[in-house]
């Protein structure tokens, strides 16, 4: 008679001693461990190679006949094109400094999620074809050849890296595993492997401008509705200038803030701030998406989608571009835009704040200013009347989003603004903020609901630090300057630190902003009652009697 296994046997995820080398253990494509594949129709319309129906859980992924040659050639071509890639392949000394720095590794404890081993998946292929030792000694020199399971493995781990760059901070050579992941994703696209959550927005951005594919007239109506909501709260209906020729400033922000909760409140914050400043600016229905889903796909796609910013600045004859709170949008602007789309159209000039006269010389080349810099400058010059006590029910911390912090060094400006509009601010532990910040766990196109568990484990180090300040200092709010974070952090907070709400920076700015001619604020932008306001009124009435 068979016996039931003991608990130890039931729960073991591996035999007591591994029978195989780590590289030989292949990942299991169980539901929840992968993102849904892109639709053939989407890929066709984008002229991507080998559009086809496939299922990551199936054995056969429908690779084209000449898949191996395609991949080898594509890899060789990229090694030729990006000197950095070749360098990253050559110089890793396997010191292990990066090993425990990746949130995916910390959350999953899967060794292939150590940045060094994630890169080794590609490096081993590199050794076979591009190094003398690898050619001669093969496996002994850590080389391996392509096979279909290797392709699957690359897919699995390229979409378990959020391209956050935390690992590169600790690498003595500055090897940027995020860039290696980007290349792997590019290679996979050569044989038709992409994910729905990324490619659908890429398609929408390509055809209609924003990631949901909302037509221009509807886009305007949606923004108008947000202006109506602003009026309900403040008594002032802010202007919503669209496609205005010769406006001084073109404002571009991720469209997530027009559609998604809680991003919409940040967008309302922009409208109110610009209205109060009487800024000569315009929104655009064409450049209606700052976020660049192309950057999760390939360098060429990123370049194509980014081009509309300058095209629109030229068409509308804007002098410079103000950019909203976004993560990867700013990574692209700060790291790649000059090469992709520069030089700027002739009508653009180095950005100067019309309110303070500050010249943003840091943006002399791209002519794009981050709104946190813009607002920090306003506050520094005392140009905003603020009542931070309206945010007194909030004890806030600040999440440094990977891209603004590690991709562009925007660390102090958001904090400066946040401290000016909130009286209660608490930092999370030192090794989880600023350059060392932990990713939300779902950046770079991974914030899709089918991998919710994966996101929660990848976001665990962030959630854990948040929970710490929640329990120790009563933090009940987390601000951030990234639209993707505004989507990914609420479920993360709800899981790891329930009770903490998430918002953009400019939602809090607008809550504290004292506007000319406004009605008495009794609620915040979410139309939730401001604590204490009613009692004040009763007190005042009683006092008057």
């Amino acid at each position: 008679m068979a016996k039931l296994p003991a608990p130890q046997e039931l729960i073991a995820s591996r035999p007591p001693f591994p029978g195989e080398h780590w590289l030989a253990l292949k990942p299991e494509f169980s539901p929840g461990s992968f993102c849904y594949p892109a639709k053939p129709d989407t890929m066709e319309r984008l002229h991507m190679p080998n559009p086809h129906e496939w299922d990551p859980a199936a054995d056969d992924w429908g690779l084209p006949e000449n898949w191996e040659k395609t991949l080898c050639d594509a890899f060789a071509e990229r090694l030729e094109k990006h000197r950095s890639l070749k360098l990253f392949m050559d110089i890793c000394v396997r010191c292990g400094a990066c090993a425990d720095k990746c949130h995916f590794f910390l959350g999953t404890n899967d060794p292939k999620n150590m940045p060094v081993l994630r890169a080794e998946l590609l490096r081993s292929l590199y050794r076979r074809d591009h190094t003398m030792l690898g050619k001669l000694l093969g496996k002994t020199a850590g080389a391996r050849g392509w096979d279909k399971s290797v392709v699957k493995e690359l897919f699995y781990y390229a979409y378990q890296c959020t391209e956050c760059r935390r690992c590169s901070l600790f690498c003595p050579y500055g090897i940027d595993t995020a860039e290696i992941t980007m290349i792997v994703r590019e290679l996979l696209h050569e044989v038709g492997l992409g994910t729905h959550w990324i490619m659908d927005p890429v398609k929408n951005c390509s055809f209609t401008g924003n990631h949901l594919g909302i037509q221009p007239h509807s886009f305007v109506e949606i923004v108008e509705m947000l202006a109506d909501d602003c009026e309900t709260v403040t008594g002032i209906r802010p202007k919503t200038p669209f496609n205005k020729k010769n406006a001084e400033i073109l404002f571009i922000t991720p469209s997530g803030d027009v559609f998604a909760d809680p991003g919409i409140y940040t967008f309302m914050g922009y409208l109110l701030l610009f209205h109060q400043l009487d800024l000569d600016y315009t929104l655009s229905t064409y450049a209606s998406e700052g976020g660049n889903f192309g950057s999760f796909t390939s360098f060429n796609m990123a370049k194509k989608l980014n081009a509309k910013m300058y095209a629109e600045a030229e068409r509308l004859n804007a002098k410079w571009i103000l950019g909203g709170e976004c993560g990867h949008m700013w990574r692209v602007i700060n790291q790649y835009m000059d090469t992709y789309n520069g030089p700027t159209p002739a009508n653009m000039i180095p950005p100067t704040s019309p309110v303070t006269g500050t010249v943003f010389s840091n943006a002399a080349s791209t002519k794009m200013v981050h709104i946190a810099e813009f607002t920090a400058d306003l506050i520094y010059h005392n140009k905003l009347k603020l009542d931070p006590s309206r945010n007194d029910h909030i004890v806030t911390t600040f999440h440094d989003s990977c891209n603004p912090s590690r991709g562009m060094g925007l660390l102090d400006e958001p904090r400066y603004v946040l401290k000016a509009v909130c009286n209660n601010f608490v930092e999370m532990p030192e090794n989880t903020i600023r350059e060392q910040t932990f990713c939300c766990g779902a950046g770079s196109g991974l914030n899709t609901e089918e991998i919710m568990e994966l996101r929660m484990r990848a976001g665990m180090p962030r959630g854990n630090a948040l929970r710490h300040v929640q329990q120790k200092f009563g933090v009940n709010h987390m601000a951030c300057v990234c639209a993707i974070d505004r989507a990914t952090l609420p479920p993360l907070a709800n899981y790891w630190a329930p009770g903490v709400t998430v918002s953009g920076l400019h939602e809090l700015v607008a809550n504290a902003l004292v506007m000319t001619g406004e009605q008495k604020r009794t609620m915040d932008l979410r139309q939730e009652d401001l604590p204490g306001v009613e009692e004040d009124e009763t007190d005042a009435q009683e006092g008057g009697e």
Partner: protein
Amino acid sequence: MRLTECLRDEKEEILRLWMEAVYATYPFDAKGVLRTVSDPFGNPGADMTREAAHALYDAVMGEETTVDGVKGALERFVKLRAVQRDTPSRALGVFHLLKPIMRQRLLPHCTDSGELNGYLAAESRLDSLILLAFDMYMADRETLAESRVKEIRSQHAQLTKWAQAFKKSLLVAG
């Protein structure tokens, strides 16, 4: 040796063995980091395991504790296991791993000193804790399921409002 003394003397070793057993459920190459990096924020998984280990031991051994207190101490660990493992048994089975360790390290002393009942009571307390952990696990899984639904709704929140307003205006016009 009396049970109380024995519990005190064996604590460190039992905790160490249990944490080793937990780490053994992770891939071999990951174990090194889990065991050696002690920063609570740099290696939160190990910190969660440590916190759970202490709470578990104290509660099982009959130290003064409240249900809320012990739940609080196990919470992070259960949350982590709930998103790391695909079945409830694989997620929560780690608590059962304490039993063989207790039987190895404590049972012989207890039999010698005639305190078998005391030992059995400790094992029963472990069973209670596992039941508590099971409730916590289920609540965590519920939260995940809700998050999925909520997220889909939030992504299109403003779009939905707009569509509803549009529909209303059509009705009024029609």
